Every structure is written in C-alpha cells, then in structure tokens.
C-alpha cells in the first residue's frame, strides 16, 4: 500500500508536468494563429483598406488554392515525408482540366484527378515499396510532371480556354454568400482533414508512422499501404487545386505552379508541423497559409515596395515567424535532449 501512494504521487507529478506541456503544446500548435492575429491587428490600424470585407474576400480566395495543396502536404510531412512535386502537379491539373472540359465538366474534373492521383500513387509506391527518399522521388516527379505538361501543350505554346458557362468553370468563379466556391471547398476539406487526422485510425497511424516508422511497423501497422495513400492524396489535392485554379481563371495556363511546393511547405511548417514528422495539425496549416497571404497583402498595402525589397521583406518575415514558432515550441519539444 505504501507502493500505491508512491505511484499516485508520481502520477500527480506527471499531471503537473502534463499541464505545463499541454499549455506549451497548445501555444506551439496555435503559435501561427497568435502571430497571424498580431499581424492582422497591426495592419488593421496601419492600413485603412486592410480590414475591409473586399480585402477579406480577396485574401480568402487567394489563399484557397495554396490551402488545398498544403492540406495534402500536411499529412505527408506529418508522416515524416515530403512532396516536392505538388507545384508541377498543380499546373498539370489545371492544364488537364482545360483539356478534359471539352468533353464536359465531369471529364474536366476527373481527368486531372486521375492523372495527378496517379502521379501521387507513383510517388507513394516508390517511397513505400521502393524505399526511396521522398525528397528525391518527388523531386524527380516535379521534373516529370512539368515535362508531361509541356508535352501535352506543345512545349507550353498551347493554352486551352475553358467555356465560361461550364459547370466546372462556375465552380472556380461562382460565389456563395459573397465568398468564392473554392473558399467553401477549402473549409469543407479542412474540416474533413481535422477529423481524419485527429479522430480516425488512419490519421492516428499517420502520426505513428511519422513518429517512428520502425515502431509503427513492429506494432503491426500497414505502413507501406498508408504511405502510398498519403502521397496519392497529396497528388489528388494538388490536381484538384490546379483544376479549380484553372476554372477560376478560365484557362489551363502552362506557366503556373513554379515554386508552389516551397510555399506549401513553408505554410505547413509555419503551422507548427514538424518536418521530422510525428506531430502537426491541419488547423495550423490553414493559419500558415493565411499568414503567407497576409504578408503578401500587407506588402501590397504598402504599395510602393520595389520587387526586390518585396522578397527581402517576405524572407525576413518568414524567418521571424518560424523563429517565434520555434521559441514558443521550445518547452513542448523538451530541447534539452536534442541540443
């Protein structure tokens, strides 16, 4: 019975410890939100044209395409991987939508989903069964997908337009309650994303795989199959985003999506997800996306910054934001082990 008191006391020690960690964890996960709130607050006072409904609409719309791509990236990164191909796949998705729509809106949305999903599947297979480093595999498909795009547009010369009245085009251009459909699609996808990650066995196993592949495998999780689905999903979402973006601008533009993958990664990490895998949140990613877009918006609010200074500013911004992130997450990650 002495032992009993012993244990309960340890337990309470643990509870105290857990409370601290819980708060730290919360701050870390919400760190991006905190920073976002700060910037929004400051800008609201700094620029009178910032806190307007129109501007909110713009930012929401501008964020939606990156958000969809970043959602897939979030799952991949949490599993300890990375997907560099999304930028090219995004562009390819748009071109394919414009190509497919000549056979109707259904074809217009299916074609990009099938092909881009297929590329994702290829990534997944090479990573899961070929046991190749995700970074290099998806770097290869980054090139390949762009090549495919150029091949079907005779070297990018041929931009297909999408009929204004087609259903798919409307999906990109139409609005509901003042906000474009893509915005609502994002909301739906992210709610689903939160549920899948937090509340399903699938999401749970993704966290486990990211936390330790070896352990996950020995615990009997179907690591390879999961991994394959993750990359497939990332490809699908990138394709969907591309199709919507094409619909939004009513044409399968061939020059889009260059460097998009880096934006997506930045958004995910700013959102508090560990690139080492095993921890991260879908909500954080959304905040990360908004942060990047608000930064752009603020730069335009200033309105007279030369293009060179613009990149300097966004680079500095990025560094500061992640620095704050890291600082907030210190306690959470118990750095005394790793540093």
């Amino acid at each position, binding site marked *: 019975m*002495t032992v009993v008191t012993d244990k309960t006391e*340890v337990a309470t*020690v643990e509870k105290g410890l*857990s409370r601290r*960690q819980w708060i730290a964890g919360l701050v870390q996960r919400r760190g991006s939100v905190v920073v976002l709130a700060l910037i929004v607050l400051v800008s609201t006072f700094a620029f009178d044209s910032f806190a307007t409904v129109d501007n909110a609409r713009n930012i929401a719309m501008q964020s939606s395409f990156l958000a969809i791509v970043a959602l897939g990236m979030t799952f991949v990164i949490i599993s300890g991987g990375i997907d560099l191909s999304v930028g090219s796949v995004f562009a390819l998705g748009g071109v394919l939508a414009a190509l497919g729509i000549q056979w109707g809106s259904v074809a217009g949305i299916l074609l990009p989903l099938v092909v881009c999903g297929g590329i994702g599947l290829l990534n997944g297979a090479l990573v899961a069964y070929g046991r190749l480093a995700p970074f290099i595999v998806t770097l290869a498909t980054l090139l390949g997908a762009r090549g495919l795009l150029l091949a079907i547009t005779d070297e990018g010369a041929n931009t297909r337009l999408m009929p204004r009245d087609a259903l798919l085009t409307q999906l990109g251009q139409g609005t509901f309650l003042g906000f474009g459909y893509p915005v609502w699609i994002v909301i739906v996808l992210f709610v689903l994303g939160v549920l899948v990650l937090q509340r399903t066995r699938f999401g749970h*196993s993704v966290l*486990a795989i990211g936390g330790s592949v070896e352990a996950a495998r*020995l615990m*009997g999780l179907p690591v390879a199959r999961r991994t394959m689905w993750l990359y497939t999903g990332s490809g699908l979402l990138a394709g969907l985003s591309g199709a919507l973006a094409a619909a939004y601008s009513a044409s399968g533009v061939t020059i889009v999506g260059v460097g998009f993958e880096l934006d997506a990664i930045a958004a995910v990490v700013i959102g508090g997800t560990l690139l080492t895998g095993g921890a991260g949140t879908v909500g954080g990613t959304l905040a990360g996306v908004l942060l990047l877009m608000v930064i752009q918006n603020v730069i335009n609010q200033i309105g007279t910054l030369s293009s060179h200074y613009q990149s300097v500013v966004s680079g500095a911004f990025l560094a500061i934001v992640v620095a704050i992130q890291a600082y907030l997450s210190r306690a959470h990650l118990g750095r005394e082990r790793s540093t």
Partner: protein
Amino acid sequence: MTGSPIVDARAVGKWFPGVVALSDVDLTLLPGEVHALVGENGAGKSTLIKVLTGVYPPDSGELFFRGEPVRFSRPLDAQQAGISTVYQEINLVPLMSVASNLFLGREPRNRFGLMDFKAMNTAAAKLLDSYGVDVDVTLPLRTLGAGVRQMVAVARAAATNAQVVILDEPTSSLEPREVDTLFEIINRVRANGAAVLYVSHRLDELYRICSSVTVLRDGRKVHSGPLASLSRLELVALMLGRDLEQIEREGTTKFDSTPTEALETPVLAARGLTSQHRLHGVDVTVRPGEIVGLGGLLGAGRSETVRAMAGSLPVDAGTVTVAGRKVRTGSVAAAMRSGVVLLPEDRKSDGVLPDLSVRENIVLAALPRLSAGGLVSRKRQDAIVDKFMKRLRIKASSPDQKVGELSGGNQQKVLLARLLCREPKVLLLDEPTRGIDVGAKAEVQALVGELAAEGLGVVLISSEFEEVVEGSDSIVVLREGRVVAELRGADVTEQKLIAALAEGGGDG
C-alpha cells in the same frame, strides 16, 4: 490439445552480410508453456524472434503455425495470426500518448467510426493499473522513464488475446515490483493455453517462470528441453560453451563485494540538485574508489539525478563539485572536461550511432585527444579501439562493422568503451548491465570493480536490487526526486534497501 505445437520452426537460417546470425535452428512452442530462449549476447535470440514474427524473412528453413506452413512477410501478418511480440529495443512512438501507444491500430471507435478517446484513455488507465503503473495516459510517452515505457510495451502485447506471446528481455529495465506483476500476467496468459517465449539474461527469473528452454550459441541451437532438469551451472555452461569445472573455478564472477573504505575528499559532490518536477534537492557524494548505488523504484528520479550530474539535464538549483572544483551545470562538455561521464539509460536513442562503425563509436567522445592539429590520427585510434575491444571482449566481425548490427550487449560494451577512452574521474552508469548476458555482465561488473579499485568514483543505477547491493559500497535511496535514506557499510543489504523504500513510502 497440449502436445500439438502452436509454433514449430524448423532449420531456420538467417545471415547478414558478414555474419551468420542463425543456422538451422529448431524451436517448438507448446500451448500453455513458458519457453525460455537463452544465449550470450549475439547468440541470435532477437534475430530468431524477428524471423518468427515476419520482421526478417528467413534465408532458409520453414515455419509451421498450428501445423500449417506459413510465411509472415511483415509483423502485421504475424500479429493477425495471433503472435504478439515485445521486441528487445522498446519500439513505441515517443511523441504519442501512452494510451495511443497501447491501442494503436485497434483504437476504440464510436458509432460514427471516429476514435473514442474517452473510452481509449479509461481503458488504457485501467490496463496499466493492472500492471501497477499509474501514469497520466494522455502524456506523450517520451516524458516517461524507461521502466514505464517497458511496461507499456508489455501491456500492449499481452492485451491482444494472443495465442503466442513473445517477450524479448521484457524485464531488462523493470525492478522487482514490476517483475512480479509481469509474471502474474504471464501466468494468466499461460493459463489461457497460449504459449510464451521468454528471453532474459536473469537466470533466477528463468527458473521462476519458465518450464522449458532452448539455448542458442553463435546462431546454433545447442540444447532444448525442460528447464528443471538443468542446473544453473549447466545452463551457463551451455550458453558460454565452456565445461562445468572451468566455470566452477572462475565462477560467474560478480563484484568483489569487499567495500573499499575510502575516506579521502570526495571526487564528486552534488548538493541540492533541483530540477522542475523531477528532482528536489538531491545530495550525492562519491569518493575516489567508491561505488555509490542509487536505489529507487521506477520514476524515483535516478536517471534524472545522474543526468543532472552529467550536465545533460538542466538544473534549476544545486551545485556539482568534482575534485574540489565547481563544475558548470547543464553542460555535458563541461562535466566531461571535469572528468564526469554518463552511460545513458536509453542506449538506442542517446547512445549508439547505429550507422557508424564500432571504431567511430568508441572514439567519438575522445576525438580531440586522438587527433593532432585537427587531424584524426588513425594510429592512436586503432591502438585505443583495439585495447578496449579486447578488454571488454566486444564481439564484432571487425572494428569496421556497423554498431547497429551488433547485439544489444555488445552495443552496451561499445558505449562503455567510449566513456573509458576519456579517462574519466567519475563514471555514472545508468543500467550498465541492462540486457547483457551472464558472461558479459560478470565482465562488466568485474570491470567496474577494477575501475573503482583504480581510484575512479562510480555511481551505479540498476533495477536489479541484487546488483546494486552487491556492487555498491553505499546506497543513496531516492523517491520522487528526494533522498529518503542513505545506506553504508554493513547496512548495504537487500532487506535494508527494501525497508528504506518502504519507509520512504510511508507518508511523504
């Protein structure tokens, strides 16, 4: 149904580049038996288990499960067939909560197919409680000590009502209380007609729980049969492959338990070590040539104490003095410079560099002193590596073999060698003999004795009371990060230690 084996492995062979880990090994597990699998470090126990459970495909031989020929291509297959395993290196997900780790892959779900965390957490708490572990199951596993992690792993394996339960050194980081609970579990499992394969280097445990035994040596099966019919000495003889007389002569030497009465000024003096939620003003004093044991139950803060002294755990208050000179706390480098080195508890994550060679692992901490003008001197390296590989009898195909490929015990020896080439003043050993075979264990213990005799100060943590008592000249007993008793001289006995723990537990 007894008689018809559940698992029957025939002529199993497995080789890795440069090593034959197993060659035609037979193993038969009968329902309701607890089967001991023993052998020296590197004998092939873990490899056999990994082959049985689909981690490695066998290179030869056949596996029959309930009479049917089977090939498990991945652990999942084995588990679905009804074989659940606790592998040697605890394989759980540190970032995830205790509950998640317990239920991964079979989380309780509500009627919408979503995970039901409340149900999962209560179930987890209840399960662990039946193992005598009371933790907040929502905590990330990484915040818990090796002991709890070990218990969680066992609980996870035994929870699935399996037909075969395989435990690879489950007690290596448990102390008696936990071991007892574990054995209750094993008996329960056995009673349900399941078979248990049990690996341990602790002979007394084997004789307590196992009915039959298979002995491996250098990847071959050298004996299989009822355990009762073997004496300890015979068993050891089989494992080490020496004849009885030889062993009786040498004995499986432990520490020479003559306490050195050292009265000089302390080589290490820790005062009032305090670290949030972990340590509350711990004092430890070590004199040259003295071995100070740290006693305590799981989570008493033994590891924290030594980590604080080694600078790897930042402390909020307290001082560490080495040979009269104050050492900056919270800096491993500073502690090392002053001559304090730590053998970490978690070999896997804090110790070995699995992809680097034995040589590189050994010299790692001593690189600067083995190099001239920033250039590593291969000659000096080889000299020292050779010296320690011999002295610690490290079993590797060559100094260039990857440490990740060594058996658990040999990895431990490599780490010990790494510390010794720093020519330290004080050795902090957290579970130094965890997972080390009888032979090696004796060697390590003897070595520690020698080093102390040479004037080193030693702090020893072991979850085996027997070892602490045998090894230590004095014992500092901890509970929840506080010193609750100090035993010296004649008081250093198992009874006194247990008494101290109990009293300590009386009322805080």
